[in-house]
């Protein structure tokens, strides 16, 4: 057992979300769900984070930001795409500014679909991500072939 599963710190980035999923992510921190029970902290600093939560699809404006945050996170790290926009691009996929889901630019480990994703689903996704984080820590992780990641 590694300690990384006992204290996963999160960095949350709002890609081009409508704020629906963001509010559900923040709802996880409230007394109702209180993810600090599991040692989860929303750090807001990629260098302290283990889990990268992204909401919203990737567009030409935020593609560099997402890549930058991903690169700045120290290994081992996992990426969780929250909501259907982050997972696939949803119906924004064909917009003139959209590149699609988050997995078009960085590897995504867990997809949490939903519009908006429920806090329970987000917590479930983060717990799935902890398993992957543990495997990455022990170097036993094998990236799945397409479609990538675990689908909840």
């Amino acid at each position, binding site marked *: 057992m590694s300690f990384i599963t006992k204290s996963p710190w999160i960095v949350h980035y709002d890609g081009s979300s409508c704020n629906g999923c963001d509010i559900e992510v923040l709802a996880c921190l409230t007394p109702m769900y209180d993810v600090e029970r599991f*040692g989860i902290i929303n750090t807001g600093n990629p260098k302290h984070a283990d889990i990268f939560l992204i909401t919203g699809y990737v567009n030409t404006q935020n593609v560099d930001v997402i890549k930058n945050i991903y690169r700045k996170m120290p290994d081992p790290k996992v990426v969780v795409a929250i909501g259907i926009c982050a997972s696939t691009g949803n119906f924004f996929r064909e917009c003139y500014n959209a590149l699609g889901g988050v997995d078009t630019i960085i590897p995504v480990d867990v997809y949490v679909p939903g519009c908006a994703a429920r806090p329970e689903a987000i917590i479930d996704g983060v717990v799935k991500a902890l398993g992957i984080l543990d495997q990455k820590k022990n170097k036993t992780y094998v990236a799945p072939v397409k479609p990538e990641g675990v689908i909840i």
Partner: protein
Amino acid sequence: MKLLLAALAFVILTPVVCGLLAGFDRIITAKMQGRYGPPLLQPFFDVLKLFEKENLMVNQFYHSFYLICYLVFMVASGILFFTGQDLLLVIFAFTLADIFLVLAAYSTNSPFSFIGAERELLLMMSAEPMLLIAAVGLFMATKSFKVGSIASVADLNTILLLPGVFIGLLFILTIKLRKSPFDLSTSHHAHQEIVKGVTTEFAGPSLALVEIAHWYETAIMLGIIYLFFAGNPVIAVSVVLVAYFVEILIDNTFARFKWELTLKSSWAVTFIFGGLNLIVLFIIEKVKI
């Protein structure tokens, strides 16, 4: 031999005790906010996890060198304190340790770290005068700068002679424990943006060093509070615990101050409570003679 054992006990026990204290802190904070809160051992999990992470460094040499100096001087300052050496030396080593944290933050060349480092310097400017006044006050009350002899001489009379100094010290305790409203340079809580300040660029093991050094820092500050009541350990320990609880309460009820207000309020408290107390002590001594 006895001193060596005391030093060894300090080095080993402090992370355990202060880590548990931080765990209680987080649980009490969560209860105050109506949450369930993390497990008691969470601070240890955090630090052990940070050691498992990759150490991303912007500036290979200075980064780790300064951070290790920060930890070493903080431990050295604590050893001097808990083996009963000179209180002034303790405070100078304590300040030097903080300076190394500021240098480490500056060496990362990040604008967020720069702001954090500047704010850390400001907080030091706010807190250090009161620490020195506390040392001078303890000297005037007990006729010694040695922590050992202060602890053996201190009784109820000490706190009666130094009420203002003690209030001032409690005020800057908030700064030194990095509690709101004075968590300008960095914060325990999951705040965003520049509030992570000095620690912004420290990842993995580097951040763990900062966290462990902060436990030693907490031990030294609480030790100085203890010193005022050292004659009666039961009262002293309860005063320390009550002080820590009040800090948690303040942390949860105050919004962050701007730096101007931080500096002005802490200097005002320092000179009104600390300074006046020293003047009164001085007059009392003159009258006695």
